[in-house]
């Protein structure tokens, strides 16, 4: 872990109303690494995603992206400087066509034409459905469309929240192949999953969150053991 880490989360606390969901989270992702963040339902993973991506303000603590404290930056500003967040659920615009969804991905700095070219080359199925409304596609196809944003925008850091949720294993496998490919191109990735091994397959490091804190970090092998207790014992 040398050089400036791409992401550094320092003692972040956050709350919804009076209910504290993050109780001092520390997390570091080295440049170019893939980090899997695992944990049961309600551990605070999605809240952490929202804070890193600028959608929610922490009550205290700092987030550094590429060594810069991004305190107060809005989600759209971060998105334009190379943070690509694919939130939980289907992160596409259901009432826009596939092509229009792709067109909006050009806000991240790559031209719309280039976005389409890359996306269609990688997911030919999207090309077939370019004029279809995104909401009418299957869950897997929608997630492919969402992944196109990660694939085409050449982000500095990619955050994937529950990529596999509600998808068939075969499709999840296919999506994680894409993740692996993006990782190979040198993109740092934070991969949040409730269920473990899909994410661990492509990860260099892993962290486990529960009760609003990161309770274990390390190599996937080490963390896997902690994981079994937390996921299968606590919430699975």
């Amino acid at each position: 872990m040398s050089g400036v880490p791409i992401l550094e989360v320092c003692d972040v606390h956050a709350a919804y109303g009076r209910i504290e969901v993050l109780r001092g989270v520390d997390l570091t992702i080295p440049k170019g690494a893939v980090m899997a963040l695992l944990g049961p339902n309600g551990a605070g993973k999605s809240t952490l995603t929202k804070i890193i991506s600028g959608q929610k303000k922490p009550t205290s603590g700092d987030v550094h992206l590429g060594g810069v404290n991004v305190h107060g930056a809005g989600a759209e500003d971060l998105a334009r400087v190379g943070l690509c967040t694919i939130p939980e659920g289907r992160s596409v615009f259901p009432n826009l066509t596939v092509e229009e969804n792709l067109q909006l991905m050009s806000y991240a700095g790559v031209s719309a034409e280039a976005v389409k070219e890359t996306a269609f080359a990688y997911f030919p199925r999207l090309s077939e459905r370019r004029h279809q409304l995104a909401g009418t596609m299957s869950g897997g196809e929608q997630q492919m469309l969402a992944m196109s944003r990660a694939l085409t925008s050449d982000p500095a850091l990619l955050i994937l929240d529950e990529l596999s949720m509600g998808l068939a294993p075969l499709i999840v496998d296919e999506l994680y192949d894409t993740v692996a490919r993006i990782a190979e191109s040198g993109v740092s990735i934070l991969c949040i999953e409730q269920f473990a091994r899909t994410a661990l397959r492509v990860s260099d490091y892993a962290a486990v969150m529960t009760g609003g804190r990161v309770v274990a970090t390390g190599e996937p092998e080490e963390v896997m053991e902690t994981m079994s207790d937390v996921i299968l014992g606590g919430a699975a």
Partner: protein
Amino acid sequence: MFDLGKFLAFTIPGLFSGAAYAIAASGLVLTYSTTRVFNIAHGAFGMVFSFFFWDFSVRQGINEWLSLALVVLVVAPAVGWAIQRFIARGLGEGPVSVSLVVTVGLLVGCIGFATQVYKPEARTVPPFFADSKPIEIGEASVTYHQLITILASVAVAAGLYVLLNRTRIGTAMRASVDNPDLLKLFGGKPDQVAALAWAIGMSLAALGGILLVSVVGLDYYALTLLVVNAYAAAMLGRLKSLPLTFAGGMGLGLLSSYAVGYLPTDGVLSKVGGIVPALFLFVVMIAMPQAQLRIGQVKGMVSAPLPSFEKAAGSGLGLLVLTALLAGAFSEANLLLVGTAATYAMVMLSLVLLTGYGGHVSLAQFTFAGVGALAYAKLDQPNLVGLVLAGLVAAGVGALVALPVLRLTGLYLALATLAFANIMDKLVFQDERAFGFNGALTAERLSLLGLDISTTGKYVVVMVLFFVVMGWGLLALRRGSLGRILIAMRDSPAACGTLGLDMRWFRVGLFAMSAGIAGVAGGLFAGLRGTIGASDFQFFNSLPLLLLAVVFGVTSVSGALLGGVGLMLLNNNPDLAPIIFVIIGFGAVLLAKDPNGLANQLFRVGRLLADRFGPRIMASLPALPSSGRADGLDPTAGSASRDDDSLVDVTGDTSAAPGRGPDVEEVATHVAPRG
């Protein structure tokens, strides 16, 4: 035999007005669909911009085309941008009642602005190409003004199509309808998108208004109200689809025109022409599909504290004593104003029940009051029985309205009630069998249990007595089982359903009760005035009524009282109107922090004062509650209202625990939308 000439002669004006409606309506849809704020003031802005156009082109003599460009391309977009930036931002995420009230406030503000800046005088705006001869098509003719209006609507349609489907910012506009938060993650800027939508929306309001103004005339209200047609067109497109909105606008223009041309010129049917848009709006609303019950989070509103029984009794009696004292001191004219304020306050009580407790917004409360007044006058039984019957008639009408619109909530419900009020206004109230030939129907003051209360002073005291009794009734209801269920329905309809509550009948009952209160107020008002007319209950008046009710506090009886006084001053005292506007503006800003309005803020101040000085004052002044007040009386309604405030508020409730929790607490729901 089919008369082509006649047909064309009505088709062309129909297409013309349809085109103008379509332009205005598409602006409304664009704004709503990108920001979730339904701009009730859309037509009012069109009116103000038409005045600007008159100012530029006629008063200052600037070339009409240059003036058009100035208004439509510079002033209107700038106003739209400013509104989004400073007023409408974030409104779309809040409760519908707040965003509705804010835009109603804009509407009232627009009219206030126009009447202040452009004092009433005769103004005409000539049509474009006024000097050119119309084009003859058989027996019919098309003026160039009509032609460019139709062409303009086509150009607007094409322009919007290209913007929304062929440009990235347009696509982003549609995306922000789906999910503004996701748009941010894409790197888009929902705020910019919203500002653009407001700017274009205002431009289109201006264009629609200016094209219509040479036909409708430069009038504060006519253009403002024409927007109901735009609502109807917009609703056909479910506030989403621009093509359907255009079709709706055109269809409405044609239908209204044919209704004028082909329906008989006397009898009930002759009136139908004028209400085609409102009827259309009402029907489209009824045909709306059932909304899914929202399942989301624990939502609670911090309501204004309920006063203890003693406080309510004391405040009510104090108010009565005060009125009695005023009755002795005031002139006849001022007493009529006090009576009017009491009427408004009672109608606002009906909103406390419906909106404050029940969470439903109605824009037809004055219409229910009108029904009550009409029934009271027609029954010609100037006693308690007649008044109760009048209330029951109004309640029945309220139930009838509620039945078909049961499935609607929020904005749709509000618009359906507005359409209903408009229909009642045109079809019933303006019928000569209702309020008589010159719109004046006589009504006698009621006698109460054989007591003579024919003098205005006594009558006003009786009106306030009714207000107090109804206020007590509402507070009792709120405390009881029904009140709890009302609040529960407002907080979570889904939970109420799964607990076994059939909400339909509850809502019908709620509407009926609310309409009944308004009806009693109307009946009392009829007696106060002696003669009443359709103009006393114009549906339009329900808009400022809602505005003042919410700004002053729609969750408390005191709020209704303050609101009633405020509305009376606004309507009857032009000198005070600017002050009222300042109070409204101030109150509207505070609404964002506390949806309980100014009354609740005053309670808070009252509690602070009571905590600090109460014990000392109590110790030094063991006198009757009203004794210290008689000398403070000022023979103007204005200060009377202020006295009312302090009377009700300083004695405000202390039973409510302070700091009972944040305004709207959202329990975290960030995990897993469905499992």
